[in-house]
């Protein structure tokens, strides 16, 4: 693989070069200390050095709120809403977030392939960037390295004074046509260390989960958890949704919309008549963790958690998914580990 070198102060130039070819989306500073993926208007506003974006790029393929169809109440007819292809460059994506996109690809493509997602997903080009793990990342424990280039068209590996640029696909190579970058001779530097780990190899997690259905950790967690649903909403591999009809004020028509939903919410499993099939926060917390580490994983052989650390970083109650898993690991291995 040819390795090129991009000086730090030429990043905006590269972004501008890419913008000539397709629209570019990249992380931007948002709020006081957060980052969000947005369309680049000013190349110098794109940020490459960030811990994590609030929402992963899933929001472009599976938007937080989306119209499925519009309807006319007078005629009693409906028509399906447009779902345009993304057809854009996603610049500065971390490896775990692309890993999450692949998982969503699976969810929306297996079984009944869903047009909304698959149509939006077309034409997406991914430019990755390596990152320095912070106090929440643990993707190393689920098999995703910060330098993992799998699935990227171009990957940027951070050096002290710039980036190693690798074009990994013909599309990636094409995008770099016309920008002069010197070759990078030395190899890649060692990646930063993770501060968070699951204390067992990924391959063994299945066994741990098998014995974890009845475990005190669920009740312990439920004492702290307030059921706000944040962990679901920020998770890049969560794909559950709810659907609701909106009617205009004239009461002549409206739209059927879907929005992200989450299994931590009480009404997620409530049915008419008041029955709630996962009544307690303990049951809901278990379901969430099992969805990340067991149910789909049994089917695919991969954890459905990508180790981004969002659910932990965003949990106001300070509940850590790594600590939950490590409690389960500890009980499985019969050793004491950190409290949740």
């Amino acid at each position, binding site marked *: 693989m040819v390795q090129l070198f991009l000086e730090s102060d030429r990043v905006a130039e590269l972004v501008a070069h890419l913008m000539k070819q397709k629209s570019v989306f990249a992380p931007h500073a948002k*709020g006081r200390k957060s980052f969000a993926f947005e369309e680049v208007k000013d190349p110098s506003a794109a940020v490459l050095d960030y811990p994590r974006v609030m*929402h992963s790029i899933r*929001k472009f393929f599976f938007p937080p709120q989306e119209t499925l169809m519009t309807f006319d109440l007078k005629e009693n007819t409906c028509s399906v809403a447009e779902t345009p292809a993304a057809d854009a460059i996603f610049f500065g994506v971390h490896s775990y977030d692309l890993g999450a996109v692949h998982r969503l690809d699976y969810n929306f493509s297996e079984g009944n392939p869903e047009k909304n997602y698959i149509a939006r997903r077309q034409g997406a080009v991914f430019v990755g960037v390596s990152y320095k793990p912070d106090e929440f990342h643990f993707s190393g424990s689920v098999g995703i390295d910060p330098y993992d280039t799998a699935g990227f068209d171009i990957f940027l590996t951070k050096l002290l004074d710039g980036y190693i640029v690798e074009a990994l696909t013909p599309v990636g190579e094409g995008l770099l046509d016309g920008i002069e970058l010197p070759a990078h001779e030395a190899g890649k530097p060692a990646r930063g260390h993770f501060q968070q780990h699951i204390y067992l190899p990924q391959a063994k997690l299945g066994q741990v989960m098998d014995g974890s259905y009845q475990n005190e950790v669920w009740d312990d967690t*439920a004492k702290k*958890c307030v059921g*706000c*649903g944040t962990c679901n909403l920020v998770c890049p591999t969560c794909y559950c949704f709810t659907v609701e009809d909106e009617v205009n004020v004239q009461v002549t028509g409206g739209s059927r919309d879907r929005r992200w939903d989450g299994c931590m919410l*009480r*009404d997620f499993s409530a049915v008419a008549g008041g029955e709630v099939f996962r009544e307690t926060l303990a049951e809901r917390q278990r379901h969430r963790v099992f969805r990340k580490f067991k149910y789909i994983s049994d089917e695919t052989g991969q954890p459905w958690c990508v180790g981004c650390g969002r659910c932990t970083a965003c949990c106001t*109650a300070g509940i850590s998914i790594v600590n939950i898993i490590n409690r389960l690991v500890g009980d499985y291995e019969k050793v004491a580990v950190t409290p949740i």
Partner: protein
Amino acid sequence: MADKPRVAIFDFTGCEGCELNQLNFEDQLLDILAHVDIVEWREAMDGHADEYDIAFVEGSLSTPDCIQRIHEVRRKAKVLVALGACAVQGGVNAVKNTHPIDEVREEVYGQDKYLFPTLPALPLSSVVKVDYNVRGCPMTQIEFLKVFTSLVMGKEPVEPEHSVCVECKLKENECVFERGMICLGPVIRAGCDAQCPSVGQYCTGCRGLVPEPNLEGMEEILVSHGLSVDEAWKRLELYNANEVEGVRS
């Protein structure tokens, strides 16, 4: 409701901000008027009506006169909608319920305190059957329109049961906890589109608690972000004194 439903609007103890928010439907007012006949609304018009299909009622109940009037409204209305935090939960008015009532009266009237009768500030539902709620302080306009269109269509309006955090996350707001503030959003009912966190202010809880809230867990969160235990419960009480009182140990 075959013809245009007749609508009446009433106010009890409150600031009338909810009613004002109805007058603030500049863009939709004409559409709203096309679907209903407003037959009584003291703040905006003269006249009284003996019967109406839908009564929107703002304010909490806090005097014997209020109790009498709300029974009358209920009798005349087919559907009764509580409008805003005061009517739904008691609202800010209910903060006075957390102090011994004698103390409240003394604070205001001094030695004349026994001259004046007063009741705790109560939600409408503690006295009459309330069919639907439009929550918020002031009532949330988007939710009002939802309830309104539902009633016009003859379908039951549904109340959201999830937390404000859900809407806050859908909008990709930076959580105000990240700014070193506190927030009640995790245990407060959604429906306002996370109005306050969306503009950098913490959610003060105006839409009421989610069903089955874990308030001990919420206390722990607030305390871990720097509030004293007492202050934590006080913040939770601001709009929800009537509900929180029972839980606070």
